[in-house]
């Protein structure tokens, strides 16, 4: 069991996490944050294995991973 949590107030929608995720868990959501960025969401949450690759490449420390 693993869980990825996106912090929308930090996300800038740069998509680096989406490209890094080997399981295709993440995608751009349909809600914008206060800065106007459509933030990333964990669309396929149950596929997450907690590898943290998305968090390692996130330039805005907008991802927390739980295992």
């Amino acid at each position: 069991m693993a869980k990825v949590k996106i912090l929308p107030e930090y996300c800038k929608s740069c998509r680096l996490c989406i490209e890094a995720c080997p399981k295709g868990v993440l995608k751009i959501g349909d809600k914008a944050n206060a800065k106007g960025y459509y933030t990333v969401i964990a669309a396929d949450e149950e596929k997450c294995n907690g590898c943290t690759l998305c968090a390692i490449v996130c330039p805005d420390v907008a991802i927390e991973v739980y295992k």
Partner: protein
Amino acid sequence: MEKVFGRPKGLTEVPFSFCPGCTHGIIMRLIGEVLEELDIIEDTIGVSPVGCAGFSQDFFTCDFVGGPHGRAQAIGTGIKRALPDKIVFTYQGDGDIAGIGTQHAIHTAARGERITSIMVNNAIYGMTGGQMAPTTLAGMKTSTSPHGRDLVINGHPIDLPKTIATLDGAVYVASVSADSPKNIIQAKKAIKKAFQVQQAGLGFSFVSVLSTCPTNWGLSPQDSLQWLRDNMMPVYKLGELKVTEEVKNL
């Protein structure tokens, strides 16, 4: 469930002010993690320069001093000599440390000041609008070299870590990259080693990190990373360029 990845204690809660996809944030997070892991947040004084890196003081939980353009290492030298028990590091862009502050970069290393300098190399002056820097690659188009850097007119790019590695006062010099998970993990190891070298008082430690500037390169964040791999890595070779025997024994 237990949190296995999150914001390190070395960083404040302030969101980074950088453009989307800019790898500055990754490098700052690595430093924040190292400060936490070595338990030196309270003992560390950072020096920020001018440029995008000049926002550093907002993002780290350690103390910070802001310096004039290119002079961070001169200020770092003063702080370290007055307060030798403190850990002192500078966080500078390539335009700052390899252009405007080249003399400080050379002489801080030559004097073997017991400080750590982190250089973020994106081959341009980022904040001011993507002008050509000393690190701009041959043929690279920037806002002040619209036809590409001409080596006859503009000279050759400077590989600063390679230069610093030739100086006796520098005991640890590494060139790393923030483009992929593997390289980011390598970068963190190098940054941690650089701080450990300072803790041991061995001499000047220097880490150059290859970084992107999607905004001024005119590329998407993902394409910027590929551009870095294709164009910067062949010129600025990665690896530990200098590790003295004392550092190896750490």
